[in-house]
């Protein structure tokens, strides 16, 4: 084992080089790790590359880290000169060992700004660091900065495009713009994968999920298809991670965005039926070829986006809520005693209640004689219009929606489009009400003896009575 300062120097420089060479040799390294190994083995590099996995033997870390750390700090204090290539290698080694070292990421930001590093390279380095440190706040922060650079570049080209240009310049710019938008769509997709991977490595990974939200807010604003696809693909994930509160919160975020951003309210439909909502920062790679594959029985982006410039219709929103609450009921029954599932139910019901109130408010403020009336009264007492029976027993996308009787009473539809759908016999799902929620809770309390499940059910009931009860 190296002991003297000089020996450490030589050793460490060799290891930093070995790491850089490993990346040159295999550009597809997809995971890093430390190999427990208390002592050095004679004449062998502590850097091990097996298939796409890069390992560093544990004995050398305690020499390696302080060395690269001090080198970088001396450079930062202008006490020691490092050329650009050395800076790239040193920060790479440093960040793979200690990814929360903010200043090292900042050095890379500067290298990126002066064109020494490519944004993709840094996204890749961060991705690797996250395989070992999936929470690392500074790694996520750096990713957002890099993504913002890519976005700014995209917007700058878009800006040029708007200026008057002629002939070849115009042509070249159009090509460049297309390339960038394809690139952006790929980056978005890749980013979702990085988030999923980190979410699988560490449960309820706040940084990974809040990053994912940031990415959608910045790179897919207004792109309903992306939101829909996310909602579909998350269905299986949350079903397999019923304790992951952050994963469920992400679903709540998607649902909220879909209904607030993409639901064309009756008012805006008649006044300014613009398709602005649909214009996106990132065009999906095939904007007019919606995928027809059905994911997990959920309403697909294609189904939802096929109407009026991709705006969701009234019935589609009802279906989204219905499907979500059914998923939640299923999971609560299959996996008793999970606080996350009950918390999700609160949020979904809250969103529903809020959306319903907004619809009612909009109708009444327009003095619409066709009011939406989604009644909370006892189902036995409600008048059920013939329309509300339409499609009761039908299934949409292979999923039955009439699993439990739910009341829809006197729903008069504000949008002529919805009436048309009804006449065609398209499903109108039952509505959620306080009453239906209470019967759900009672059925759990009647049949379940798991003490945790009962505790959460009682708390949910109390929440309905107080928080929702006070609003209604």
């Amino acid at each position, binding site marked *: 084992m190296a002991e003297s300062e000089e020996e450490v120097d030589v050793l460490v420089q060799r290891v930093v080089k070995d790491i850089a060479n490993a990346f040159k040799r295999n550009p597809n390294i997809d995971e890093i790790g430390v190999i427990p190994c208390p002592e050095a083995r004679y004449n062998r590099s502590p850097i091990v590359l097996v298939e796409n996995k890069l390992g560093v033997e544990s004995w050398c*870390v*305690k020499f390696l*880290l*302080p060395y690269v*750390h*001090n080198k970088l*700090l*001396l450079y*930062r*204090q202008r006490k020691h000169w490092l050329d650009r290539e050395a800076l790239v290698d040193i920060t790479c080694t440093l960040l793979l060992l*200690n990814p*929360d*070292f*903010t*200043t090292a990421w*900042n050095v890379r*930001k500067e290298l990126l700004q002066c064109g020494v590093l490519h944004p993709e390279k840094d996204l890749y380095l961060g991705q690797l660091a996250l395989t070992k440190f999936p929470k690392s706040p*500074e790694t996520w*922060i750096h990713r*957002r*900065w890099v993504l*913002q650079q890519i976005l700014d570049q995209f917007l700058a080209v878009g800006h040029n495009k708007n200026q008057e240009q002629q002939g070849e310049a115009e042509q070249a710019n159009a090509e460049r713009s297309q390339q960038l938008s394809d690139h952006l769509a790929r980056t978005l997709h890749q980013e979702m994968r990085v988030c999923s991977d980190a979410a699988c490595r560490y449960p*309820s990974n*706040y940084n990974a*999920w*809040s990053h994912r*939200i*940031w990415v959608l*807010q910045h790179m897919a604003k207004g792109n309903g298809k992306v939101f829909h696809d996310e909602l579909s693909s998350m269905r299986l994930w949350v079903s397999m991670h019923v*304790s*992951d*509160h*952050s994963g469920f*919160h992400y679903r709540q*975020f998607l649902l*909220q*965005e879909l209904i607030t951003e993409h639901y064309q309210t009756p008012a805006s439909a008649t006044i300014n039926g613009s398709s602005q909502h649909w214009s996106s920062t990132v065009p999906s790679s095939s904007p007019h070829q919606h995928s027809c594959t059905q994911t997990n029985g959920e309403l697909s982006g294609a189904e939802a986006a096929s109407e009026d410039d991709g705006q969701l219709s009234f019935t589609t929103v009802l279906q989204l809520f219905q499907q979500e609450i059914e998923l939640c009921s299923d999971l609560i029954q*299959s*996996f*008793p*005693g*999970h*606080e*996350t599932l009950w*918390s999700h139910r*609160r*949020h979904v019901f*809250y*969103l529903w209640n809020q959306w319903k109130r907004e619809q009612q408010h909009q109708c009444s403020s327009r003095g619409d004689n066709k009011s939406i009336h989604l009644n909370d009264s006892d189902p036995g007492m409600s008048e059920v219009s013939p329309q509300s029976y339409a499609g009761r027993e039908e299934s949409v996308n292979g999923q039955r929606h009439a699993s439990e009787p739910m009341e829809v009473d006197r729903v008069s539809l504000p949008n002529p489009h919805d009436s048309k759908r009804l006449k065609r016999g398209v499903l109108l799902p039952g509505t959620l009400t306080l009453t239906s929620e209470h019967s759900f809770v009672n059925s759990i309390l009647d049949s379940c003896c*798991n003490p*945790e499940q009962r505790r959460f059910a009682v*708390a949910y009931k109390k*929440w309905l009575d107080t*928080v929702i009860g006070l609003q209604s």
Partner: protein
Amino acid sequence: MGTQVKDVIIKPDAPSALLLDKHADYIAAYGSKKDDYEYTLSEYLRMSGIYWGLTVMDLMSQLPRMNRQEIIDFIKACQHDCGGISASIGHDPHLLYTLSAVQILCLYDSVDAIDVDRVVEYVKGLQQEDGSFAGDKWGEIDTRFSFCAVATLALLGKMDMINVDKAVEFVLSCMNFDGGFGCRPGSESHAGQIYCCTGFLSLTGQLHQVNADLLGWWLCERQLPSGGLNGRPEKLPDVCYSWWVLASLKIIGRIHWIDKAKLQTFILACQDEETGGFADRPGDMVDPFHTLFGVAGLSLLGDEQIKPVNPVLCMPEDVLQRIGLQPDLLS
């Protein structure tokens, strides 16, 4: 199907008395006996580390054991031309460490050791159009940084230097349906972010904007059968979350909604009887971070062997009285 409740079981032989002398010895020795590797690994947050150590020493009335002059010189050396302060020498400045440095200097009544006007300019310069604050010049936005900004300015008596109305507007835009707050609009509620946001609203005199009953409800649901508090549903209890949840409850006037005796039992069980210090959970490795939040939590719970702690700034009340700062609390 059985479910595993995510909680810990406190063993009958877990510590149940407060071992103040051990904790003071642990903090006093911390840093001197660290080998290169451990020290290097955490250097990126050194300034906050010093704040944790000094604050817990002050709460235990042991501050004179620390090397005042050395620390003040260190802070001076960490102030950059832009006014911001870094975690350590050679690192880049950031709001997180600027606040920690100002808190330390307040403990030592030595704010004038640094260029205060430049600090104020630095903080002011990080405010964005929408009222939010970036953590540093690279632009990351987080409600934590909103707290750091107003806490720094409040301690320096310069709150009027920023657009407070806009700053409040941004923080409120991060409020969720459960009454909690996340790091940015649309983000999940998180006890650490809630602490920052309620603290922020306290310092800006806007606590009436919080739905205290709703938020109090969510915060109380963080208490687990062991008595410990977690930071989000289905996470393990942790001493640091015990502080953030407890301090938030104190700020919004709902601290009596949780079982204080059980929480106290949990916090005490996180002590290490041999080495001193507190860990995140019983039996884990101790560190200065959890030691501060363990001791501060016990102070909020009314332990009279410890100085009273301010729930908003996590500093001894007597220090804040000296500088004339009394953040609002709901009753």
